[in-house]
């Protein structure tokens, strides 16, 4: 059985349907990529799975199921759970990291303390034990000079190091699913490569499944096992990464792929070349 099954998920903001009857599954240990352009509904989908979408917004989950397979084997519909139950699920079962680590981290606490805090809240560890865990997490996410770095404040770290801290917070309670919403979009390309490499490596080491949300087809091609393509609040196509990139069946997917600049595609061309746009984009 799938680790996560989303069925017929529908989310509205007043009259606007941001996510319309979306269904997909995430298997244990796999990476599901959700790709789409701005406003396609990919982040709302992720926040709905976490039951964070209704907090402080006018959003309403109007239909559907979000079934999570619990460690004891029974499946739990997250849409029917109260907030205390959801708090026990967030962090322990499903964790989430965002695009901009600087807005996710508290500027007035050292980063090590923020990892330790998550462990104390979710696992009830002592202060000392939680700090030891924080130190282990620093090693897991390959932050160099961990002894020194663990006491630093977020503003003292680079963007790449901050995102490593966020990944450490996300993984510190051993979740079975990590939702990463544009985790490398704000990073320079060489740092992006480091973080993507780290995420792949950590998946091998921990077996955590991942839902990777991005607008970047290059990132999807590098990391995802299966891909869901979203457009205008709906899933237009899903399949293996190979199917989506090499045998896309929907005009929207073909159009999207025709617009992606692919490094190396210009070999042997004389001058600059316009994109040969498909699927109604031309």
């Amino acid at each position: 059985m799938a680790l996560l099954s989303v069925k017929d998920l529908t989310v509205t903001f007043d009259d606007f349907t941001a996510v319309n009857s979306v269904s997909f599954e995430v298997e244990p240990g796999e990476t599901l990529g959700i790709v789409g352009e701005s406003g396609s509904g990919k982040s709302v989908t992720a926040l709905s799975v976490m039951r964070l979408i209704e907090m402080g917004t006018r959003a309403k989950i109007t239909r559907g199921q979000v079934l999570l397979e619990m460690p004891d084997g029974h499946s739990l519909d997250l849409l029917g759970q109260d907030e205390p139950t959801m708090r026990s699920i967030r962090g322990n079962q499903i964790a989430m990291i965002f695009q901009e680590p600087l807005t996710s981290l508290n500027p007035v606490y050292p980063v090590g303390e923020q990892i330790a805090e998550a462990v104390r809240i979710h696992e009830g560890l002592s202060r000392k034990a939680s700090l030891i865990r924080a130190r282990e997490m620093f090693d897991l996410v390959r932050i160099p000079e961990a002894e020194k770095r663990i006491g630093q404040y977020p503003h003292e770290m680079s963007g790449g190091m901050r995102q490593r801290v966020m990944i450490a917070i996300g993984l510190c309670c051993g979740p079975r699913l990590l939702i990463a919403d544009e985790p490398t979009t704000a990073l320079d390309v060489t740092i992006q490569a480091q973080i993507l490499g780290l995420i792949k490596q950590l998946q091998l080491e921990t077996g955590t499944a991942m839902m990777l949300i991005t607008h970047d087809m290059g990132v999807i091609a590098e990391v995802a096992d299966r891909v869901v393509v979203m457009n205008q609040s709906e899933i237009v196509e899903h399949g293996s990464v190979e199917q989506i990139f090499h045998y896309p069946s929907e005009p929207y997917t073909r159009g999207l792929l025709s617009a992606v600049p692919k490094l190396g595609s210009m070999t042997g061309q004389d001058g600059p070349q316009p994109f040969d746009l498909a699927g109604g984009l031309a």
Partner: protein
Amino acid sequence: MTSLVTGQDALVEIQRVSKKFPTDGKAQVHAVTEVSLKIEHGETLAVVGESGCGKSTLANLIIRLHDADNGKILLKGQDITNLNPREMLVHRQTMQIIFQDPLASLDPRVRVGTSVAEPMRVHKAATKEAALERTRQLFELVGLQPAMMNNYPHQFSGGQRQRVCIARALALNPELVIADEAVSALDVSVQAQVMNLMLKLQQELGLSYLFISHDLAVVERIAHRVAVMYLGQVVELGSREQVFRDPQHSYTKRLLSAVPIADPRQRTSRPLLTGEIPSPVWPAGEGPEVINHVEVEPGHIVAEE
């Protein structure tokens, strides 16, 4: 040292241009150090590099939004390095710039048609009627309905807004358009459409572009020549084929190897990169070493390591 310049009769030539900015305290950011480049008529020179490498500062120096500390900026052979704003005015018709975020570049309370016509008003380049007619033509040129001239920026999509900014940049018939991350904020389908528009305009109008970008895949598509910047200096310069197919400098190779390729069959198990770019901030009186360049083949210039 081999000069970083090639060919004759350049539209723009910069010679050993440097720019430092003070930080708080006594340190300085060495944003651009001794950069020499040429932009030829009708070509696209792309400048690529990561955050803080000095690529935007370089663009702003060329168009004189910043004043260079050292070095020379030549526009069609004429030294414009020290011209005052009044003297610069006539040259600004030759060079125009487009920025990353079109919403920040357009006045929210001014109709876009008025924004597009504004350069003609400032430069007294056309009568009111002629400016209106020209604005209509510009809208058609960039693929917008002339009827949209009376709308406000918030009524447009991001791609349409960038088309408005391109129309405004073209209002005075410039020869050089500087595009500073001009397609970076756009969705990929819109980005491709705007890049196709820029290529079409280059064909039709014979424009030169200075294309500043962090995105190597985009640059490969649009550039004739490429300069790779690292910590304020150019580490590699050459034709698109030379830089992308035969990169020589270790930083260029590192940058290219980091680009995710939108093809799962080309998925690589490359070694985990480590390390970050050092700081361009130096204490007063200190600064980076100026690197020497060698020409490894005609037009392909590489920093010595």
